[in-house]
């Protein structure tokens, strides 16, 4: 079977092709799709691409960030305005992977991949979908709950800039400096008068898709970020998680270490690079 490659200058046309062509799959960086093609995945008959400039656009204003779904981890690392996201982007693969891996691709990456998507979840991101009846916007967690259904094309993601120093991230791996996640934790911890107000916590590799730790978020509301203050959140750290066994770690291990790393993250104890 020959594969057809179709490249579209406009994203909307790529979206149409994705829903109309048989066995169509959208190719961004290639780390997922090309692997499947190399393995003769029979479900891929048409590769759809786009050269639309908006797809790789980074727009940062005082209040808001919008990232084209084709923006690579390397492009994020090159953008000084996004320095709070650098620890996340740097933790995705090695240098060559970062030149290819995209924001959009990460949204579809199966667990234990998808740490950037987990970070976006903690940033309360929304997802812009192309095609169909114009653009549609939906919250990221809603998108993640139905990402396996049907052919959708993400055109960009958007979120409000977090307060400076309010965003924290840790990726727990066995291989340093980069490796597949045992788990990752992203947290947005805005404070008012030293007390947490409106926390967002998201986990990677603690379920089939990145997941919000809503019980832990509620338990942190109004608390100080010290041992006593974070204890209630740690007690409900596992709520909403459904980790599984894979080659990297067992579900049991992931559950065991989650509260330890959450505690260190909330108390600001993680060393800069390693976990």
């Amino acid at each position, binding site marked *: 079977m020959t*594969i057809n490659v179709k490249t579209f200058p406009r994203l909307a046309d790529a979206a149409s092709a994705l829903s109309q062509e048989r066995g169509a799959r959208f190719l961004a960086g290639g*780390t997922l799709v090309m692997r499947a093609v*190399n393995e003769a995945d029979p479900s*891929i008959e048409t*590769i759809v691409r786009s050269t639309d400039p908006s797809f790789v656009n980074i727009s940062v204003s005082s209040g808001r960030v919008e990232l084209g779904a084709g923006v690579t981890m390397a492009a994020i690392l090159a953008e000084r305005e996004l320095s709070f996201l650098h620890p996340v982007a740097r933790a995705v693969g090695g*240098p060559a992977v970062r030149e290819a891996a995209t924001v959009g691709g990460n949204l579809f990456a199966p667990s234990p991949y998808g740490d950037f998507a987990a970070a976006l979840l903690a940033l309360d991101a929304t997802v812009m979908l192309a095609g169909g009846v114009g653009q549609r916007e939906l919250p990221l967690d809603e998108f993640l709950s139905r990402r396996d259904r049907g052919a959708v094309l993400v055109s960009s993601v958007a979120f409000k800039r977090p307060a400076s120093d309010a965003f924290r991230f840790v990726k727990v791996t066995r291989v340093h400096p*980069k490796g597949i996640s045992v788990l990752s934790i992203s947290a947005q911890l805005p404070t008012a008068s030293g007390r947490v107000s409106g926390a967002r916590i998201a986990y990677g590799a603690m379920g089939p898709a990145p997941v919000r730790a809503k019980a832990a978020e509620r338990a942190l509301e109004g608390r100080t970020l010290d041992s006593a203050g974070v204890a209630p959140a740690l007690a409900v750290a596992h709520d909403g998680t459904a980790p599984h066994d894979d080659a990297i770690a067992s579900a049991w291990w992931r559950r065991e270490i989650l509260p330890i790393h959450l505690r260190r993250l909330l108390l600001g104890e993680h060393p800069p690079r390693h976990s």
Partner: protein
Amino acid sequence: MKTPIQFRLNGEEVATFVEGGANLLDTLRESVGDLSVKGGCWQGTCGTCTVLIDGVPRLSCVTLAETCAGHSVETVAGLRRGADLHPLQSAFMERFAAQCGYCTPGMLMAAKALLDKNPNPTRENVVDAICGNICRCTGYEPIINAVLDAARSDSRRRA
């Protein structure tokens, strides 16, 4: 239906026809005849197939070949200048930074990508530059030392 593509390989224009979905690794080895690029996994996980595209490290096994049309690709075959080895190649030899040699082409390209952008890397920079390349033989230390040596010798030459 094959697609014609033309790109610059190690400074020379090359052209070939590719099947839909062909990856750059197989295109370089099978169609263009550059056997200096090696394949370890065809999954984008080992780094063996690392090449430079427009100066940036990329995994050729998960790169769609036709996206290279009009771009510049560098492989190990293009490292040496005639009889002279690239400083990285000499440094790898002196530091015994290869045993089976299979990861070496990918390592050299990853290291070149680093030194071309950062001629004075720290050890941590080097570790990060090669962290996507698996070596099963050397334990990485000789490779890290070789890259640092090459950086130092390069800077001495330019000084």
